[in-house]
């Protein structure tokens, strides 16, 4: 078990199974198709991300360096939250990018009864340590426990 200290972007607690990508998470390429065609598990459809391709991320602890791609990214993430198909939490090794931040903040401010804690600045060691299937807990004050 290891603990990592990050920074809270949007608050909350969560405990979920890790799904990990070491490449940038392209939000539009990953999620648009599954949101559009009723996949409640939100399987990733990004052909450029073999680590995630075909894996469901709804309710999972999505561990990533940052998001990339189209500026619809934040809107897509906001819609995933509104449709309750969002990850249980998003855990960024790097500083969060502007698109993911927008999606998480829009959901936090404009949607009711939605929780998707987002922690960033967890460090490269976090992404080296965490593996698919591990249990990740988002505690208080930006502390993330991986076991």
């Amino acid at each position: 078990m290891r603990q990592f200290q990050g920074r809270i972007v949007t608050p909350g607690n969560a405990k979920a199974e890790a799904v990990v990508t070491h490449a940038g998470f392209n939000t539009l390429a990953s999620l648009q198709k599954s949101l559009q065609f009723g996949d409640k598990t939100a399987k990733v459809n990004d052909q450029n991300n073999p680590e995630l391709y075909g894996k469901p991320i709804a309710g999972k602890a999505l561990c990533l360096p940052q998001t990339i791609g189209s500026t619809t990214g934040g809107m897509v993430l906001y819609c995933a939250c509104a449709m309750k198909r969002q990850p249980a939490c998003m855990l960024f090794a790097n500083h969060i990018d502007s698109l993911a931040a927008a999606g998480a903040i829009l959901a936090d401010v404009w949607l009711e009864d939605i929780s998707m804690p987002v922690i960033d600045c967890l460090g490269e060691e976090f992404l080296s340590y965490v593996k698919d299937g591990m249990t990740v807990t988002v505690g208080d004050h930006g502390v993330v426990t991986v076991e």
Partner: protein
Amino acid sequence: MILTQEQQEILNGSKGDTMAKVMKTLVMYGEAFGAEKLVPITGKYNHLVTSFGLGVIEPVYELMDKLIEAGAVSGQRFSVDPRPLDKNVPKNFLQNIIFKFFMYNKQDFYEEQLKKLGLMDSDAFTCACYLDQVGNKPEKGEVLSWAESSAVVYANSVLGARCNRNSGIMDIMGSIAGFVPYFGLLTDDGRKASWVVKIETTKKPEAQLLGSAIGMKVMEDVPYIVGLDKWLGTELDEQACTYLKDFGAATASNGAVGLYHVENLTPEAVEQGKKLILDGAREYVIDDAELERVKNDYPVIWKDPNAKPKLCFMGCPHMTLQQLKDWTDKVEAGLKKAGNAKVVIPTVFTAAPAVLKEFEKTPYAPRLKATGVITSYICPLMYMNNPLCAKMPVITSSNKLRTYTTARYYTDDEILLQITKGGK
């Protein structure tokens, strides 16, 4: 973050709950990036990325309704990304039904919302809003609240405007408030380069391939590109701007680039030169072999990789007037060489409605039509994002379209050969 008295009062609810939420959104957004203040937007027009009435993004329309009902509409008028549908673009019976009744069944509703929110005009649907014919071209140094990755990277890099890579919805939040948080690409420090990219190719690199290579390498960092002026020259003329339009779109979609500098060419690189490069900047050398490696690494996710292409899309981002003219010449010459009268693969060239109107006035328009090429204002990406199109073998020279759909990338020369002569 330190707010002005006016901003603080709005946050406290002086203009109602909805405006307070708009302000809270911007404050949280800024705080996530250490912004110490909100600064006024100085650009004349905004640009939004969300142009499609996709039934499934109902939450967005609900939010827009909340804004309209509260009178929280944009102080700026805006252009918006391309429409998703056009009757000119080939589609079969089933696709037609899926598009009209299932996917984009909210298109008319959403366009009404856009009008209420401040749409420039009914033709203002394009990702290349900065083209002269469209008229949303910011000045150097102007502060923007734009979204659309290809437009943001062009505005920052080629025009020297200042805009972060804002997300859809966040774009209109800034415009409604009239302020954006001051961080990242709005600041002088945020516009410094942490990568030096050296171009050492033996010929002019394909714009969309070079952009892809750089985007995948530097992700969201700012690259300072050396050696590209050898191929583009040192003047931001029509040819150079067109190249940078396509190049930038690939950097932004294959990575997350919001600004690049090209030595001796783009405005800040001309003014400041190597002073733009941060200490400890990393280096990336691109030669012919590296571009070939990048191209060969693209996955082909067609069910049958050897299938004959059924459709070709060109114009993501939208083509310029000059590109339409140049491609008319190229397609005609290619057909003549191949001994064909019309293109052998259904081919769609996409451009802004205002650009297409200008093109229709030129003698090139009937010539292009005679080759069988269809012109459209559509967004190819929106067209392709459904299971029926996903199964179609579509080819493109757009690295953005390749990234987000099942379309297969070919260079411009390869595309020309395929549509005029045929082949796999």
